[in-house]
């Protein structure tokens, strides 16, 4: 099936009226999202992740640039038409607002009441939406009595009842325990398939990116600094933000206490630390052992990480190699030529 671009952002810039002056918080954003895709947005706090979501949902109009949703340019659309178009885009946040004195059923029915649906249809659609998010048992409860996970489920149901095409999730995993997060991921996948949704989510949790996203964009200071697949993010991070993001998940970097001791310049009192990165490589251990034997070098494995992301194996190892620097450099070059992506990341002091 041919996939089309459901979201197209071109040269988006947006400002924020700060206490003293206007600040640019989205800079030259160009982005296309394919229909049915799950896109993750990562970045530090204040990088512009939520601002970008608000821009896609046309909750804030951009200062310049074009926002096209489903081949329609919404940027300059007049308010009455925009109100209708916004119904295709759902927004779920970690702190959703509900009618506190109305039960779950009535909260889910709210978007339909706004659109003046007949009462019989409302009951049916609300039941369907609650069944989809697996919250039918709480239909008569008040929102105040729900857990954080159930509140997110309710917010999802309230969006689904609107028959949305795009779902924007703003940090919805915040405040959820591990089990609830896993459940929510499964639920998102299920509703994405059932409704052919395009999902864009912001998070700072690498496990969520790994398990649910197809593609990732990395944001820093209001700009997109990297667009890549999840696999590329975890194997070949190009930006500092991405490297920082995966540092503790994939053991791409050494722990901070070790890193403090590492120096950049080689010396007789130090030995090399080498990071070896391989994905689809036949017999990597054999290549590594043979190389070190051939160059008469000794090594210790400091840390190693192995996982499957999008059906690709990821292996990252950091080893210390003892020997003179020229031989170590030659060995690293040899490893690189044999499919083991290797680099010297620094020099650690010898322990006598």
């Amino acid at each position, binding site marked *: 099936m041919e996939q089309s671009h459901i979201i197209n952002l071109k040269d988006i810039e947006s400002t924020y009226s700060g206490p003293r002056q206007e600040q640019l918080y989205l800079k030259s954003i160009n982005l296309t999202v394919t229909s049915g895709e799950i896109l993750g947005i990562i970045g530090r706090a204040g990088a512009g992740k939520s601002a970008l979501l*608000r821009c896609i*949902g046309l*909750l804030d109009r951009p200062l310049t640039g074009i926002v096209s949703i489903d081949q329609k340019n919404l940027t300059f659309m007049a*308010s*009455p038409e925009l*109100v*209708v178009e*916004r*119904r295709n*885009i*759902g*927004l779920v*946040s970690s702190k*959703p*607002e509900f*009618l*506190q*004195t*109305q039960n779950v059923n009535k909260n889910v029915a*709210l*978007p339909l*009441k*706004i*659109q003046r649906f007949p009462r019989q249809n409302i009951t049916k659609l609300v039941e369907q939406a609650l069944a989809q998010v697996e919250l039918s048992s709480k239909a008569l409860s*008040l929102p*105040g009595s729900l857990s954080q996970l159930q509140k997110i489920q309710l917010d999802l149901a*309230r*969006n689904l009842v*609107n028959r949305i095409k795009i779902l*924007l999730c703003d940090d919805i995993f915040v405040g959820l325990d591990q089990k609830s997060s896993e459940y929510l991921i499964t639920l998102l996948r299920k509703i994405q398939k059932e409704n052919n949704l395009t999902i864009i989510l912001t998070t700072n949790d690498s496990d969520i990116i790994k398990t649910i996203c197809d593609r990732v964009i990395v944001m820093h200071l209001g700009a997109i600094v990297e667009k890549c697949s999840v696999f590329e993010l975890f194997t070949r991070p190009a930006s500092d933000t991405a490297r920082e993001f995966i540092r503790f998940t994939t053991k791409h970097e050494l722990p901070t206490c070790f890193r403090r001791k590492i120096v950049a310049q080689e010396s007789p009192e130090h030995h090399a630390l080498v990071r070896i990165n391989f994905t689809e490589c036949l017999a990597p251990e054999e290549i590594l052992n043979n190389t070190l034997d051939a160059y008469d070098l000794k090594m210790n494995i400091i840390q190693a990480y192995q996982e499957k992301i999008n059906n690709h194996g990821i292996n990252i190892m950091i080893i210390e190699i003892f020997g003179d620097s020229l031989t170590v450099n030659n060995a690293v070059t040899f490893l690189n030529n044999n499919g083991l992506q290797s680099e010297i990341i620094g020099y650690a002091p010898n322990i006598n």
Partner: protein
Amino acid sequence: MLPTLISALRETLYMVLYSTLFSMLIGIPLGMWVIGLSYSKNGFNRGLSATLHAILLAVKATPYILVMLLFIPTTNWLINHHISFTGATIVPLSVAGTMLIAQAVCEIFKELMSKWQSTTKSMGATSKQTMLLILLPESLTRILETCSNTAATILGFSIIAGAFGAGGLGQLAIEKTITEPNFLYAIISIVTLIAIQQIFKYTAILILPPKT
């Protein structure tokens, strides 16, 4: 003594209940209208909203005795048209009450609007739908609570009106204390006023849905 007290109490309740009713009927829609204008895209509407909001705050800050003075021409006109002083006092009391309720409604809606703005926009609700279908039911408890508090404030204002000769418990207590002097009327009036305030408060608690 008892018939005098009952007659004064009847006058006070007449002033307070009618004034509160008029204040609610005008104050709630006025507050909603002012806050609705402030979210308009039209600059004139926003300016109008800011001006009305400033007027609401100014009247709220004005001591009630001055509001009574400002309404002397209206009160005189009503008295000349065969309406009692007590009845004529309902006008300044209602104006003061309306301003209190409208200003409180503005604050409540402003706070709720900031919380709900993203949600309602993404639901595809217009400003009018947001006000009527979401913010009004959501704020109903707080608005009714405000009305109950306003009724208690109007009760206090009615005592000031009594000093002008508008009747009620205020006039009775002031007259009897200064002319006779008999403090018993003043003490009974104070106890009765406290009792009425408590009745307003507990009626509100009984009517209102539980707070969430």
